[in-house]
């Protein structure tokens, strides 16, 4: 079936409208549909998906009845709000810090699944405590560089190198 507007391209968007019991059908190609403003987006962008999912959950505020919604991750400083906006998290620990809010979204994105069952690194990775410490040291290092305290920066750099060995 050809698009009833341009009569050139294949009609791929079929619109059925019922107004006052009167049924009208419209068949358009993608381009014309877009021009007419009736194009349906075939896939939601990831940001839209995330925002709509997070928005559909009760906010922490509603659950806890206090201002807990401003919680930020103690390790990287990011907030849920930033995640909704950018669709990316701030650090690996966000998965723990925001677990309650993220879990429904994780399940939705992965067909209801919420536990890993694939490859596991053969080398046991550095303990959580050490990883958090490394992130903290790096943050302090950045601050030291910003304040032009190069002595402290060198000290911190040594500490990081030591722990990474």
């Amino acid at each position, binding site marked *: 079936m050809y698009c009833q507007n341009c009569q050139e391209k294949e009609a791929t968007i079929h619109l059925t409208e019922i107004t006052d019991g009167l049924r009208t059908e419209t068949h358009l190609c993608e381009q014309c549909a877009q021009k007419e403003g009736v194009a349906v987006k*075939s896939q939601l962008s990831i940001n839209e998906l995330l925002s709509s999912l997070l928005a559909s959950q009760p906010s922490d505020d509603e659950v806890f009845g206090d201002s807990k919604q401003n919680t930020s991750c103690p390790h990287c400083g990011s907030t849920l709000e930033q995640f909704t906006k950018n669709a*990316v998290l*701030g650090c690996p620990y966000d998965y723990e810090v925001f677990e309650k809010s993220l879990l429904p979204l994780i399940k939705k994105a992965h*067909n209801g699944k919420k536990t*890993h069952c*694939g*490859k596991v690194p053969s080398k046991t990775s550095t303990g959580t405590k050490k990883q958090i410490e490394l992130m903290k040291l*790096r943050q302090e290092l950045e601050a030291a560089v910003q304040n032009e305290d190069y002595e402290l920066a060198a000290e911190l750099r040594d500490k990081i190198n030591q722990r990474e060995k």
Partner: protein
Amino acid sequence: MKLTDISANINEWFDGSGPLADIVISSRIRLARNIAGHKFLSRCSVAEKSEILKKLRDTLMSLELGDKVFYLSVDKTSLLGRHFLVERHLISRHHAFGNGPRGAVIAQREFFTAMINEEDHLRIQVLKGGCQLSQCYEQINRIDDMIEQKVDYAFSPRYGYLTACPTNLGTGIRVSVMLHLPALKMTGQIEKFLNATRDMGLAVRGLFGEGTEAAGDFYQISNQVTLGASESDIISLFENAIIPEIVEYENAARNQLLSKEPEVLDDKISRAMALLRNAHLISSQEALFLLSHLRMGINMREHLGASTPAIEKLSGLSDASRGTDKSETLSISTINRLFMLTQPAHLQLNYGKQLGPERRDALRAEIIRSALNG
């Protein structure tokens, strides 16, 4: 190594070889990884990004990959060069046009790329011609093991490999196959196919060109679920269910065209031949669209034994790319070559300078004419 060292030729995975390559052009597996003890990139300062970049670059360049590898500083690569890398499927659009210190480690034969500081600290991919997902996984898994010996990945026993976006969580694996489905399109069944794949939770994208519009009947389908299914489960779903079914449908549609509508088929192929052999200005969209019909014609002859007047005439075109040996018939690798080398950045890089759209259209038409007129 310069980009112009590779830009005059097609990559190995696009030379038309490999199992089922008449329909499944190539297979790709990509893994997303982050280094433990660092924040994700969105919260990293430029200094921390540089530190990650250096660490991963040194690690990757020290690996034994069975091929020469070269490193590219993506943020210092020219705009044209970055467009080229995207056309070549060596790096993602996100990586090419993102910001901050970032790089790519690329195997000279182009089967392997590592993107450093894309959305995650590290994304590695292996690409092969035809349907070869298991082989891709075997290779990328081995490379991943080698990297893991040198850096600590962010990993949680519960959630698996931790990624910046929760949609990649778990295995961090993205399995993709690139498909050429001209007959499903011609017989009006493509929408049905696209809806069915989306219903299975798979993502469908166009292979060439901007956005999601599929140009030249090339589609890329990939998994979206990465958590709660193992790597081998996901790969086996593609190899044992999804791919055989698609190949069967496309072949059925090709046979249907041959038996029921040979004139429609011949008309498409003949028109494509006539335009490509005579046009003096041709856009990349139009070239993709027309070359797609030639590709289908040659494959139908080789794989289905099709012999309609247009297909005979098509395969009778002497292959100009084979030099003086005019006895050779037009091959798939010549057509694939035209697909790749007539992309905008390829054209300009091989020409040696930036060209406006009209000059590109003229140059593109010239390359195609000379390849098809022997």
